[in-house]
C-alpha cells in the first residue's frame, strides 16, 4: 500500500461520509433482502428467522463466533443450502429454486478452494469460460484482473507454488471476474498473518469501492469487521443481535453479548435506584459505589441492569480525582505491557477485577504505575452504557 493509495482511501471515505448512507434514507430499496430466513439441520436451528436489508455498495460484515449461523447464512445466499423457510431477494429477484451456477453471486471461500490442477490464469478464467465468453475477451479480462490484484507475473504458476497472500488474491480475482452483483466472502483474511491482513484489508476496501460491488463478509474477527465494514451484523445462536455501523456497535452495544463480543468491556451488575428521563443512578454491589449515567434508559422498576464501560474510557490516577461521581478505588493486580498501550488489572475492595488500558505516554518505566499500587479509577458519566439485556 503506497502513501498515495492511503490518501486516496482516506479522502474517499471522507467523501462517502458526507453523503447520507442508503440504509439511513427512508424508502431506499435494499439490494439484498433477507426475509424471515430460517435454516434447520434436523432439530438444530442454524439460522433463526433472520430478516436483514443490505444496500448497494455496502460492505456488510456478519460477525459472530463459530456456530453462530453466519456461514450457514452465507451459504444460503450462495445457493449451497436452501432455507427451510423465508425468502432471499437479490436485486429484486427471488432466489428460490435458483441454482448456485445461475445466481448473480460469487463467493470467495475461506479455504480459497483454488483448483489445484489449473494455473493461476486458468483459475481466474474459469468463471468466464463457463459463460462462453470469447477467447480474446477472456484473455484480456483475466490479464486486467490479475493486474488489479498485482499477480500479472504469476499467471502460469499453480496454486501450490504461491504464498498464502498470493492465493488469497487469486481467490479474490477469481470471484470478481464475472462482475457479480454480490460478492460473498467467507473469512477472507482468516488465513493471513497479521501484517498481511492489515494491508489486504485496505486493498479489499479499495477494490470494493472501485468496482462498486456489494460485499457480504463473514468473519469471527471483530477487528477485521471494524476496519472493513460499512455496517456490522453481530450474530449469535442463529440470530442477528445488533445491526449497526462499526462505531455504533462498539460505543452503543445493545446487549451484554455485543458489548462482550466486540472489544473488551467491564460490566457492573446493579439495580436502578433513580430513574430520571435523562439520567439514571444505579446501585451496584459489584462496583461498591452508586453509578451515575447521564442518559435515560427504558427498563422495568427494580430490574437488574448492567453498566458497561470500555477499558480505554477509564482514567487511572494515584490521587483522588476531583469528580465525585463514578470514582472507585482499587489495587493494581497485574500489568500487561503491549508496547503502544498497557493493560492494567485493578482489583476492587470487594474482589472484582476491572480492566483498564492506557496509552504509554512516557518512555520512562519508573514513572508508570506498578504492581500493588493503590489507584483511583474514574470515568465520565457519558462514557458508559446501561444494558438491560
Amino acid at each position: 500500500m503506497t502513501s498515495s493509495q492511503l490518501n486516496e482511501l482516506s479522502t474517499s471515505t471522507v467523501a462517502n461520509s458526507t453523503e447520507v448512507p442508503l440504509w439511513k434514507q427512508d424508502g431506499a430499496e435494499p439490494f439484498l433482502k433477507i426475509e424471515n430466513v430460517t435454516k434447520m439441520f434436523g432439530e438444530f436451528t442454524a439460522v433463526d428467522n433472520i430478516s436483514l436489508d443490505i444496500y448497494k455498495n455496502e460492505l456488510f460484515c456478519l460477525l459472530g463466533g463459530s456456530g453462530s449461523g453466519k456461514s450457514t447464512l452465507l451459504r444460503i445466499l450462495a445457493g449451497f443450502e436452501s432455507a427451510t423457510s423465508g425468502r432471499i431477494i437479490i436485486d429484486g429477484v427471488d432466489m428460490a429454486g435458483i441454482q448456485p451456477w445461475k445466481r448473480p453471486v460469487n463467493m470467495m471461500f475461506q479455504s480459497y478452494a483454488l483448483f489445484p490442477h489449473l494455473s493461476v490464469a486458468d483459475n481466474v478464467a474459469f468463471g468466464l469460460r463457463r459463460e462462453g465468453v470469447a477467447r480474446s475477451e477472456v484473455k484480456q479480462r483475466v490479464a486486467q484482473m490479475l493486474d488489479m490484484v498485482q499477480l500479472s507475473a504469476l499467471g502460469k504458476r499453480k496454486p501450490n507454488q504461491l504464498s498464502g497472500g498470493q492465493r488469497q488474491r487469486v481467490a479474490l480475482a477469481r470471484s470478481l471476474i464475472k462482475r457479480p452483483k454480490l460478492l460473498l466472502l467467507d473469512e477472507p483474511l482468516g488465513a493471513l498473518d497479521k501484517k498481511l491482513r492489515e494491508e489486504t484489508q485496505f486493498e479489499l476496501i479499495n477494490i470494493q469501492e472501485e468496482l462498486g460491488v456489494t460485499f457480504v463478509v463473514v468473519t469471527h474477527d471483530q477487528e477485521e469487521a471494524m476496519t472493513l465494514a460499512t455496517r456490522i451484523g453481530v450474530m449469535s445462536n442463529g440470530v442477528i443481535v445488533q445491526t449497526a455501523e462499526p462505531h455504533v456497535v462498539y460505543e452503543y452495544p445493545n446487549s451484554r453479548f455485543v458489548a462482550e463480543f466486540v472489544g473488551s468491556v467491564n460490566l457492573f451488575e446493579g439495580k436502578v435506584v433513580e430513574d430520571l428521563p435523562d439520567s439514571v443512578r444505579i446501585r451496584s454491589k459489584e462496583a461498591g459505589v452508586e453509578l451515575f449515567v447521564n442518559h435515560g434508559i427504558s427498563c422495568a422498576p427494580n430490574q437488574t441492569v448492567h453498566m458497561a464501560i470500555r477499558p480505554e474510557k477509564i482514567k487511572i490516577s494515584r490521587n483522588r480525582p476531583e469528580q465525585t461521581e463514578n470514582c472507585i478505588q482499587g489495587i493494581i493486580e497485574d500489568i500487561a505491557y503491549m508496547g503502544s498501550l498497557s493493560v492494567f488489572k485493578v482489583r476492587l475492595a470487594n474482589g472484582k477485577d476491572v480492566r483498564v488500558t492506557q496509552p504509554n505516554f512516557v518512555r520512562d518505566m519508573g514513572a508508570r504505575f506498578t504492581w500493588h499500587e493503590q489507584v483511583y479509577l474514574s470515568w465520565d458519566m457519558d462514557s458508559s452504557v446501561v444494558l438491560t439485556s
Partner: protein
Amino acid sequence: MSIPSGSAWIDKSASGMARYNLSRGVNWGRFSVIAVPGLWLGIFFFIPFLVVFKISLSESAIAVPPYSAMLEWDLEEAYATFKLNFGNYLYLFEDTFYLDAYISSVKIASISTFFTLIVGFPIAYLIARSKPSMRVVLLSLVILPFWTSFLLRVYAWMGFLKKNGIVNEFLLSTGIIDQPLVMLQTDFAVYIGIVYTYLPFMILPLYTALEKMDLTLLEAAEDLGSRPYQSFFLVTLPLAVPGIIAGCLLVFIPAVGEFVIPALLGGSDTLMIGRVLWDEFFLNRDWPMASAVAIVMLVVLVLPVMLIRNAQGKEEAHS
C-alpha cells in the same frame, strides 16, 4: 543490537552442527535398514531375471536342464567355448505367431482395463462420497472376494457363462432369447473374467484419489457457473488422474501376462502371451524360447510404465 547478533550466533552454530553430522561418513544404521529390502529384491527379482535372461540366450537341448550350457570347457584341449544364441529373439520376429500374441495380449488387456475403469470409477466415487461409517463397509465388500481363491472365482464364472449356465437359463426362461448364447470360450468371457478379477485393484487407488479431494472445489466450480456434470469433467476427473493411472497400471500389467483367465474362459483362438509362455515351457519344453518370450514381455511392459512414471514424476517436481 544484541538480539540480532545473538540469533546470528545461533544460526552459525546450527549449521556447524549440520556439517558435523554430515562429516561422520557412512551412516551404518541407515544403510542396514535399506539393505534388507535391497537384498530381498536382489535375491528374488534381479538374480532370477539374470538367470532367465541367460537361458534365453542358449539353445534348447534334450538334457537336464533342457538347454545348452553357455560356457563349455574342453579340459583335454584346454580351451573354453562361450556361446551366445540370439536365435530365439530373431525367431520371435520371424514367426508372426509371437508378435500376434503380444499384440492380442496388449489389446485384450487394454480393452479390459478400459472397462474396469468404466465399472470401477462409479463404485469408487460412491464409496468416497458416502458417510465415513459406510465407507468401511463398502471397502470391505470390495476386498471380500479376495477371501476366496482366484481360481475358484474364475471357475464360478464358467458356471455363469456356459451354454446351460445361469445367465442362459435366465434369459431363456424369461423369453428374451430362444437359443442359448455362446459366451464361454470367447474373448467376451475373457474380458468379463479380467474386469471382474481386477476390479478391486482399480477401485482402491481411485477411491484414494477421490476421497482426498476437497469438496468445496465443487462448490467453487458451481459458484463460478459450472453445472454439476461440467464440474465432474473439469474438476473431479482431472484431480482423479493419479488414481486413474495407478489403477490402470495395476490392472493392465497383470492382465497382459494373464494365463488362468484365458485358459479357463477363453476359446482356442484367444491368443495371449501367457498361454504362449505356458505352451513353450510345458508342451514344447523349449525353455530358451520361453525365456526369450518372457524377457520381451517384460520389456514391452516395463518400458511404457517407466515412461509414464517418469512423466508423472517430472510433473510433480514441477508443481
